[in-house]
C-alpha cells in the first residue's frame, strides 16, 4: 500500500506562496506531535498514517473558512487553532468508538463532528504536548544535562548533590535545567504557535 503523503498543493488551494510555505512549515512541526498523539490514543499502528492524514485533511478542508485578519502570521495562527480543534475532536471521538474495532470508519468525516471542547480534553492536549516536547528536546542535550534537569526538578534533589554525582559544576546544573526548560517551552510553541508575535530572537 502506498503511504499517504501530505500534498499541500493538492489538498489546500492556497492563495500565494507565503501560505503554502506556512502550510509546509506547519505540517513539519505538527506531524511528529500528531503521530505521537495518535499512537497514544490507542490507534492501531497500521492506521496511524491514515489517522494523521485524516486530521491534516480535516484541517485543510476548513481552509476556505480562513480570512486574513491583517495581523502578522494570520494564516499560521489560524492553522494552529483549527488543528487543535480537530485533534480535540479526534480525542473525544476515539473514546466512544475505538474499542477493538479495526477499520478506519471512526476516522472518517472528522470535520463533521461537533466540537468536543471540554476543559478536561484541553488539559489532556496540553499534557501530551509537554510530554512530547520534552521527549523531542531531550535528544538535543547532553545526557548529563537531562539528568541534572530530571534529578533536581522532577525528583526534587539538591543541586549540590546532583552536581557531585554527575561530576559537573553546580553552576552548570542551574544553567542546564534552565536551558532545557526554555527549550521545552519553545518546542511547545513551535506547534501551538507563539501567543503573540514576540520580539525577534
Amino acid at each position, binding site marked *: 500500500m*502506498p*503511504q*499517504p*503523503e*501530505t500534498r499541500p498543493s493538492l489538498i489546500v488551494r492556497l492563495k500565494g*506562496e507565503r501560505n*503554502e*510555505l506556512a502550510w*509546509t*512549515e506547519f505540517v*513539519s*512541526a505538527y*506531524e*511528529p506531535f500528531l*503521530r505521537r498523539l495518535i*499512537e*497514544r490514543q*490507542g490507534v492501531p*499502528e497500521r492506521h*496511524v*498514517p491514515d489517522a494523521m492524514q485524516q486530521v491534516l485533511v480535516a484541517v485543510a478542508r476548513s481552509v476556505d473558512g480562513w480570512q486574513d485578519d491583517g495581523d502578522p502570521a494570520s494564516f499560521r495562527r489560524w492553522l494552529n487553532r483549527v488543528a487543535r480543534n480537530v485533534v480535540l475532536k479526534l480525542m473525544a471521538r476515539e473514546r466512544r468508538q475505538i474499542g477493538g474495532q479495526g477499520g478506519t470508519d471512526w476516522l472518517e468525516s472528522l470535520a463533521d463532528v461537533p466540537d468536543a471542547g471540554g476543559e478536561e480534553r484541553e488539559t489532556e492536549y496540553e*499534557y501530551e504536548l*509537554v*510530554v512530547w516536547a*520534552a521527549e*523531542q528536546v531531550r*535528544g*538535543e*542535550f*547532553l545526557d548529563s*544535562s537531562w539528568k541534572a534537569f*530530571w534529578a533536581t*526538578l*522532577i525528583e526534587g534533589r539538591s543541586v549540590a548533590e546532583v552536581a557531585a554525582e554527575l561530576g559537573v*559544576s*553546580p*553552576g*552548570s546544573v*542551574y*544553567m*542546564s535545567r*534552565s*536551558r532545557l*526548560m*526554555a*527549550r*521545552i*517551552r519553545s518546542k511547545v510553541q*513551535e506547534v501551538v504557535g507563539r501567543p503573540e508575535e514576540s520580539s525577534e*530572537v
Partner: protein
Amino acid sequence: MAIPKLACDRERLRQSLDDRLSEQQEEILLQHLAECPACQHELERLAAEQAEWSRVAEVLRREAAARISSAGAAGTREPACDSPVDFAVAFLEPSSLPGALGRLGDVDILEVIGHGGMGIVLKGFQQELHRPVAVKVLAPHLAASGAARQRFAREARATAVVVHPNVMPVLTVHSSGKLPYLVMPYVPCESLQQRLDRQGWLETLDVVRIAWQVACGLAAAHAQGLVHRDIKPANMLLEKGVDRVLLTDFGLARAVDDASLTRTGVIAGTPQYMSPEQARGEAVDHRSDLFSLGSVLYAMCTGRVPFRAETSYGILRRITDTEPRPIREINPGIPEWLVTIVAKLHAKDPAGRFASADELAKLLEQCLAHVQQPTTVPLPEAVAAIEFASVEARLTATAPPLSSSRSRRPLLVGSILAGLAILAAVAGIAIRTHQDDSDERSKSPAESAVSAAPSTSENEARGQSALSVWQDGVVEQIRGLDEAVEQLDTRAAWFWDDDTPSAPTNNQTNAIQSSNPEAAK
C-alpha cells in the same frame, strides 16, 4: 585559579541561556551562578514563568509515574527496540546462499554493517552480477513517514545525476516497497569521522589531499545545481589501499530552485558542520557547502569540531555569532596558508568565501603539489594573496591600541602576562574537554575491547600537543609519540558509528554508507 569576580549581570544570563557566550565567558559566569541565589532565581525567571516550571514538572512527574505502572502491566504499547540484526532478519526473504542472513530483491544479505538514525546498512552479494554490494534500508518507523520516504528517494535521485570518481554512486533504488532501499557498490573503507576519532588531527598532506578530493566531488554536484547540505566527516569515505575519497549521503541534497522545501524551519542535518545561513534557516546555495567543508578542514587540522556547545541550539549560536579558536593555537604544525584557506571558507557572509568549489579544488590541487614538493613547487599565488589580505586586515585592526599604549609599557607587559595565564588556563580546559570527548567515544564496548590501550595514550599525546604552544621544545617529541600511536591504531579495528555500540562486526573493513541521526527527529 584566579577567575575574575563577576557582578550580577542579567544580560549575561540571558546570553548564556541562549548559548551566546564563548566557552571561556560561560565558565566564568557559571562560577558566579553557583554562588549567587539572586542570579539563580533570575535565570529561572528568564527561562520560563514560575507557573510553567510547575506545570512542566507536574506533567513529567505524572508521565513518569504512569510509565512505571504501565511497564508493570502486561502488554505495553511501546514497540520493542530490536537489535539491528533481529530487525534485518525480520524483513528479509529466505536465501538459498549458504551463510546468508536472507534475501532482499536480487541481493543476498550477508551481514549487517551498521545502523544509524535513518536506517541500517547491510553487506550483500548480487549473484547474477557476481559483485558485493552495500544495501541501505530505511528504518521501519521512518518508512511510515512521508517526509522520510521523500528524503530517501531524493537521495537516490540526487546521487544519480552526479557521476564523479569522488561521489559514491547509487546502483539501484527500490522506493515503492514496504521498506525502501538503495543498492551501492561495496567499498572497503572507513569514514573520515572514524579516522578522526582514531587519529585526532591529520598531517597537512592528508588534510589537503582529502579536502581537494571532496572539493572536486562537490564541484561536480554543484555543476548539477545540487547543494549537498550535509557536508561532514561521517559523509566522507576513505577507501582502503588507495588514496580515494568518496562523498556520500546526499539525503539532504536539494536542487537550488526547490525553494518550498529549503525553509521548513526543521533542523535538517548535523548542526556542528552547518553554515550560518543554514543555522538561521535561510535559503542556502552552493557556498553553504563551502562553509561546512571549512569546518571539516578545521576538524582535520585540529582533531576537534570548530563550534561546540552543550546543545544543538548552542552550536547554531556559535556558528552564527563566534569565531572558532585559532587552529594554530591547537596545532601549531599547520601552515599559515592552510589556516587562511579555512578562514576564507569560514567567512560568515557567503560572498566572502571562495566563489565555487571548483575554484577551491583548483587551488587545493596546487597546494597539494607544493606540500609534496615544497622546494620545487611554490605556493599558488592565490593563496599568498589571501594570506596577505588577512595579515594586513589584522595589522590594521591591532595597530592603533598598540602604538597608543607605548608609554605605558610595563602595564602592557603585565596584561600580556595575565593574558597568557588565562590562555594557559583555557588550554587546560581544552585538554580536559578534548579528553572527555575521546573518552566518551571510546565507551563503545566493542571499540574499547579492541583499542582501549592505544586510545588512552593517544589522548595524552593530543593533550600535550595542544600545550606545545607554550613548550616549543617538546613538539618534536610529541610528534614522534603521535606517529607511534598512529601505527598502533591502524592495526585496530574500526566500527560503524560512534553511537552504535552494538555494531556487530568483526571484519576489519566496512563498507559504510553513513546515515544521519538527525533525520530521525
